[in-house]
């Protein structure tokens, strides 16, 4: 099922044109693409998806990758985390009509982010529907607001908004004042009140703010839209874990969102318009990046 060989050549040329010093990161292999200039040697046929700094998702042969210390370098990870991915504006669409409270999103998230059971980056709430006198399930993450009240109040730039719209936390910087927790109207933030889960196990791991792991005692943590996965061109942990097709995720600059379960890609604007999408508490002026489709009965 590998691609035809002729495509490889053009891709290689394309990469060379980009100047591969700029290629930011690769997949879960924890390898870093350093150079493709010596890519004439035999291809292994195994491909990894790489997002270049120019924002192109390209497939690169594993043979062209070399292990690098860079991925273990805190400064490198810190710079990368603050820089963000140019040209993107990530959005999530949550289809409440499909949520059956399976909570696979919650467990996937807690596993990925080293969270204790009571800590939620994503929390599926049972909400009352005052009109129908019933309840519905509502997954609530950080809304990655375009006017983020939590970022406004941070005294040390520990939480910040990136050019791709993601609001992140640098827990190497956070002083633990919890002003952001108080300021967030969505209660999306959680705090490491005690030593984090598996702290010893993760002690040696270099901190990556895009994953916000390892967690640190006395610092705030919250949903990061799985910025580490987005860099690899993968959907967030929660989005991929959902068995019911609740989540769409994508780039509003492209007007495309992809369903995490069915992998179907649709136009964001059409999805929002046709389903009368809304954001949480728009009257607060926070301008969330997470949209909700109403929890009507699914008659289909």
């Amino acid at each position, binding site marked *: 099922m590998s691609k035809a060989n002729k495509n490889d050549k053009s891709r290689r040329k394309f990469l060379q044109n980009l100047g591969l010093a700029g290629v930011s990161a690769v997949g879960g292999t924890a390898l870093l693409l350093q150079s493709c200039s010596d890519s004439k040697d035999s291809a292994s046929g195994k491909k990894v998806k790489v997002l270049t700094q120019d924002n192109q998702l390209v497939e690169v042969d594993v043979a062209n990758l070399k292990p690098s210390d860079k991925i273990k370098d805190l400064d490198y990870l810190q710079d990368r985390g603050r820089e963000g991915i140019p040209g993107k504006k990530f959005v999530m669409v949550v289809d409440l009509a499909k949520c059956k409270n399976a909570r696979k999103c919650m467990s996937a998230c807690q596993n990925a982010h080293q969270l204790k059971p009571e800590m939620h980056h994503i929390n599926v709430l049972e909400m009352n529907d005052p009109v129908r006198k019933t309840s519905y399930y509502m997954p609530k993450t950080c809304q990655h607001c375009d006017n983020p009240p939590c970022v406004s109040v941070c005294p*040390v730039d520990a939480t910040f908004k990136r050019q791709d719209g993601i609001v992140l936390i640098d827990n190497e910087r956070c002083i*633990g*004042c919890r002003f952001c*927790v*108080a300021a967030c109207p969505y209660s999306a933030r959680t705090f490491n009140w005690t030593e984090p889960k598996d702290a010893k196990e993760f002690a040696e791991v270099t901190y990556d703010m895009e994953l916000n792991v390892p967690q640190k*005692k*006395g610092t705030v943590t919250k949903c990061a839209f799985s910025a580490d996965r987005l860099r690899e061109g993968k959907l967030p942990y929660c989005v991929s874990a959902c068995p019911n097709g609740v989540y769409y995720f994508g780039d509003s600059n492209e007007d495309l969102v992809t369903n995490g379960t069915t992998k179907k890609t649709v136009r964001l604007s059409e999805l929002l318009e046709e389903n009368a999408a809304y954001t949480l508490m728009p009257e607060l002026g926070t301008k969330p990046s997470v949209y909700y489709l109403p929890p009507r009965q699914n008659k289909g």
Partner: protein
Amino acid sequence: MNDTLSKEILTDDQIEQDLLKNINWGNKFKLWLAFLAVSLIICLYFYYQQIEHGLGVTGLHDYVSWGIYISNFVFFVATSLIGMLISSVLGLMNVSWVKPLARIAELVAVAFAMVAGLIIITDMGRPDRLLNVFMHGRVQSPIVWDIAVVVTYVAISILLLYIPLLPDIALCRDKLKNVPKWQQKMYKILALGWKGKAKQFKLMNNYTRILLILIIPIALSIHTVTSWLFAMTLRSGWDSPIFGPYFVSGAFVAGCAAVIITMYFFQKNYKLDKYITIDHFDRMGRLLVLVALVYVYFNINEIIVPAYKTNTADAKHVQEMLSGHESIMFWMVQLGGLIIPFLLILFRPMRRPLPLMLISIVILTGAWFKRVLIVVPTQLAPYYPIQNVPEKWTHYMPTVPEIAITTGSFILVLIIMSVLAKLFPVIPIWEIKEEINHNKN
């Protein structure tokens, strides 16, 4: 004319003797200090525990992430504002009866403001990163404003305590020969070669005047900014444009009460009834009535406006206060801590030293709980339901370490005030002498 001072004719020597009397290291005081020190060490042990195990040793959680540390911080900042009201506002208006009280007010201000800064540190999850605030400080954050104004306010208050103290320090240097060597040396340095020259008095008066003017905006902003820690958020119950003046007016109530209590103990311990008279208590009581009235007015505003509109989230908050979970504390604080004491001190007998001091203790306690009521209930009523978390996260109960650390802050205030009152005269001697001479003439 100052008619609050004793009508007895006092000589300068008599005054000096009376007012320098408190400067000695008696056994009674040593015992008191030892008691405070031991209590503080116990509290510090709990703080050590908090550093070791994280803020998890407190009753705080993701939904009430600001608890009694922050309410205590607000309370301390509030109490320290009184220095500004008494020495500056009344002083600049030439209200002469406050002159003997000005130093006590500044003492309260310095002690509470200094400790307020420390309380903020106890609330931090990562106190080891305190320097980040200076290295990476973000000018848009009310916390940065708060730190800036608290530090400034402490500095001004210390200067305002120190500069008018110069003639008295010189007096200590000249008259107190049986105090320890280090203390004599300290007086010598701190007196700045004070000789009581006219030019020195002129400089002192000029500097004091600059500071008295400067402290008004700084004091107003220190508490306004503290109120903005809440008012700048989008939470119902905090999201209120009158929070600044509301806090400032409440601050004067707490501060007046604190000064009255301090006055009472200094008067009794140091036998100062000729200088802190029944008349002083009466007038402080009347000042307390005035500031309490303003505060009641703001309280009514804070409740009536949202209660009338019943906007969804506000309605819930108001209902919780008036008849819900918080109602017992709410009515205790409003009636017991504000309205009833306020009505009582309208009567002259209640403004005598002992009853006024007792009422002030009630008011001060009420003021402390009032701050808890401002900080905690709003967080317990978030916009989205509290679910999938331990049951105890739906309410808030401070733990032993938390209460101990908070108690520690009060002990620290007592230590600062006790030590300062043992090193320097608590009544401005040179001003009293001037007043008496003035009266005699």
